[in-house]
C-alpha cells in the first residue's frame, strides 16, 4: 500500500460546515469525524478506529476513526458506489466485524458477541429499509410488517405493549403511513406500487420500536415528489418511535433534511495503482 491509496474517506459535514479530513499515519487511511466531543455513552452507535477489508489480502475498503450516532439523530450517509456504504451498513448491523477497531450499538460491543448473538441483537434493536423489492413476495402486507416480531421477542413485546397485539401495531404504523386501506392490505405485497412498498418496508423497520433505523437507498426507486413525502413519513415515525435514523444514499438531494451528513470518499475496490481519489472535501 503506497501513497496512491487513499482508502475510504469519511467526511462528516455538520450543519453545512466542511471539516478538514483527518489523516491517520500514512496516507492510506483518512477518517473524518465531527469535531465536537462525541457522546460515547448513550450513543445509539459508536465506531472507533474501524478498519474493514473483505479478506486479508484485499486492501481495506473502509477506515473510520470515530463515528457516533446520537439517539434520535438523523444522519445522511452519502457516497458513490463502492465507497464503502454497504460495508458501513453491514458493520452497523453486526453482519460483519471489522478487522481492527470496535463497533458498538447501544453500548454493546459487537466484537464481544458471537454471530448468532449479533443477529439477535440486530433483530432487537435495528430496523431496515432497502431500495426496492423489500418485501417477501409470499407474505401479505401485514405479515411483512410483523416479520421482525417473529424473530425478536423484545420487539414483539414492545409492539404488544404499544398496540395490544403485533398485528394491531402493524396496522397502527400502516395507518400512519396511509397504508391501512383494506383494499391495499388485501393485495399481495408485490402488487403494490414502489412507493407503497417502501412505506410497508418503513412500517416493518419501525414495528416494535427499534432504537436505530437504517435505510439503504430507500428512496432511489421513487420519483422526487414521492421521495420527499416518504422521507417526511419516515422522519415523523422515527421521531414518534424515538429511533435514530441512518440514511444511506448515493444521491445527495435529500441531504438537507437531515441533522448531519457524512460523506464517504473514494471508490475502494479498483486495484491500488488505478485508484482514483473521488472523495475528499469536494462538497460545499
Amino acid at each position, binding site marked *: 500500500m503506497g501513497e496512491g491509496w487513499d482508502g475510504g474517506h469519511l467526511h462528516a459535514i455538520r450543519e453545512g460546515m466542511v471539516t478538514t479530513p483527518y489523516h491517520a499515519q500514512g496516507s492510506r487511511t483518512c477518517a473524518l469525524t465531527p469535531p465536537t466531543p462525541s457522546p460515547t455513552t448513550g450513543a445509539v452507535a459508536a465506531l472507533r478506529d474501524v478498519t474493514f477489508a473483505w479478506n486479508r489480502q484485499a486492501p481495506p475498503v473502509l477506515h473510520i476513526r470515530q463515528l457516533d450516532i446520537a439517539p434520535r439523530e438523523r444522519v445522511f450517509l452519502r457516497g458513490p458506489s463502492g465507497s464503502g456504504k454497504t460495508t458501513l451498513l453491514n458493520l452497523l448491523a453486526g453482519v460483519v466485524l471489522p478487522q481492527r477497531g470496535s463497533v458498538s450499538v447501544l453500548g454493546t460491543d459487537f466484537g464481544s458477541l458471537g454471530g448468532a448473538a449479533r443477529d*439477535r441483537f440486530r433483530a432487537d434493536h435495528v430496523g431496515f429499509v432497502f431500495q426496492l423489492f423489500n418485501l417477501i*413476495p*409470499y407474505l401479505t402486507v401485514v405479515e411483512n410488517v410483523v416479520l421482525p416480531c417473529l424473530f425478536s421477542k423484545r420487539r414483539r413485546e414492545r409492539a404488544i405493549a404499544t398496540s395490544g397485539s403485533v398485528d394491531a401495531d402493524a396496522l397502527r404504523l400502516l395507518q400512519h403511513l396511509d397504508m391501512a386501506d383494506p383494499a391495499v392490505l388485501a393485495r399481495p405485497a408485490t402488487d403494490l406500487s414502489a412507493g407503497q412498498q417502501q412505506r410497508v418496508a418503513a412500517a416493518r423497520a419501525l414495528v416494535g420500536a427499534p432504537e436505530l433505523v437504517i435505510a439503504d437507498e430507500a428512496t432511489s426507486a421513487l420519483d422526487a415528489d414521492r421521495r420527499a413525502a416518504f422521507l417526511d413519513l419516515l422522519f415523523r415515525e422515527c421521531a414518534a418511535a424515538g429511533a435514530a435514523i441512518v440514511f444511506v444514499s448515493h444521491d445527495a438531494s435529500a441531504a438537507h433534511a437531515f441533522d448531519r451528513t457524512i460523506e464517504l470518499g473514494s471508490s475502494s475496490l479498483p486495484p491500488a495503482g488505478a485508484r482514483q481519489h473521488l472523495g475528499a472535501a469536494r462538497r460545499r
Partner: protein
Amino acid sequence: MIIGLAWKSLRHRRLTAALTVASIALAVLLLLGVERMRTESRTSFAATISGTDLIVGARSSPVHLLLSSVFHIGNATNNIRRDTARALSERPEVAWTIPIALGDTHRGYRVIGTTGAYFEHFRFGAGRSLAFEAGKPLTADDEAVLGADVAHRLQYRLGSSIVLAHGAGEVSFVLHDDRPLRVVGILARTGTPVDRGVFVPLAALDAVHAAANVQGESDPLAAALKQRDGSSGGSLTAVLVGLKSRSAALGVQRSIGEYAGEPLTAILPAVTLLEVWEITGVVERTLLAVSSMVVVAGLAGMLVALLTSSSERRREMAILRSVGARPAHVAGLILGEATLLTLAGIASGVLALYVGLLLARGWIAARFGLFLAVAWPSAHELALMALVAAAGCLIGLIPAWRTYRVSLADGMTVRI
C-alpha cells in the same frame, strides 16, 4: 414459525411445488403399490386354500398344478382318470377328497366340475368353510352353484338357467346349449377365486362333452385323446385331498408319486406356494429396485427445484436476515420447504394408492384372481414412508446448507 413461512413460500410458488409434490407422489405410489401388491398377493394366495393337505394332478410342475387347480391361473396340461381319484379316496390315510374338473367356461367365468364334497370340505382363509348366500349345494346332475361375483355380475338368481361353453377363453364358439343347468345355490363372498367360479356336477360336464363328441371332432388327435379319457369314465384336472393326520402328508405324497396306474404329482399347497414366491421374488425385487430408483429421481427433482430457486431467492433471504433471521433460520426455511414437499408428496402418494386400490381392485380381481384388501398401511409400508421422508429431509439439507453459506456471506445485501 419457520414452517409457517415455508408453507406460505410454497403456496406462493404453487406450480413448481405442485409438480415436485406430484413427482414424489408418483414415486411413493409406485413404491407402495409394488409393496402392497407383493404382500397382498401373498396373503390373498395364502388365504385361498386352507385345510387341504395335498393336491393331486397329472405329472406336471407343482407350481403349475397349484396355480391351475386352486387359483384358476393357466390351464392344466394333462388330466387324471377318475378311477385314479377313486383309488386315492380309498386310501386309509385319506379323510376326504374333492374332485375338480376344469376346462369349460360360462360367459368368461371358470366352470368347476366337482361334487357335493366341495361345499362340505373346502376351506379358505383361516379354516373357514363355504357358506351359502342363497340355496343349497349340488345334488342333481342338472344343477349349478355360483360364486358371489358370478351371480352378481351376471345377475343370476336361484332358478336361472345357464349354458356352458367349451374352452377356458372369455369367448367361446362351442356352446353346450343343449344341456342347460339350473342355479340351485349362490355362495357367500369369500374374497378368493371361488367367488368367480361356476360349480357344476361332474356328470353335467360329462354329458355336455359326450354331446360335443357326437357332433364329431375335426382333429383326429384330440378325438383320440378324448376317447382315451372317456374310456375310464371321464377325467379330472386335480383332486384336493384331506388327510386324517397331517403328519402323514409326506408319506402319502411320496407313494402317490410312485402310483403305477398313471404318472401323478402330489403337492403340499403351502410348500408349493413358497416355490411360487421364490419365482415371483426375483420380479418383486426388480420392481422394488425400480420403484426405489423412481423415488430417488423424484427427490432429485425436488433438489433441482430447490437449488434453482435458491439463487433467485437470495434477495428474499437477505430481507429475512435484515428483519432478524439468523442464517440457521434461513437454512431452516429451505429445509422446511423440502420437508413439506416430501411429506405432501408422501401423503398424496398414499392417497393415490388408496384411490387406485378402490378403483382397480375389481379389475385386478377379475383379471388376476387377486383379491386386494383395502387395509391401513402395514408397519413395513410405514417404514418405507418414513424412509422416503428421511431421504427427503436429508436431500433438503443440501440446498439448506448452500443457502446457509450464501446467506452468511451475503448478509443483508446481495452481492452478485
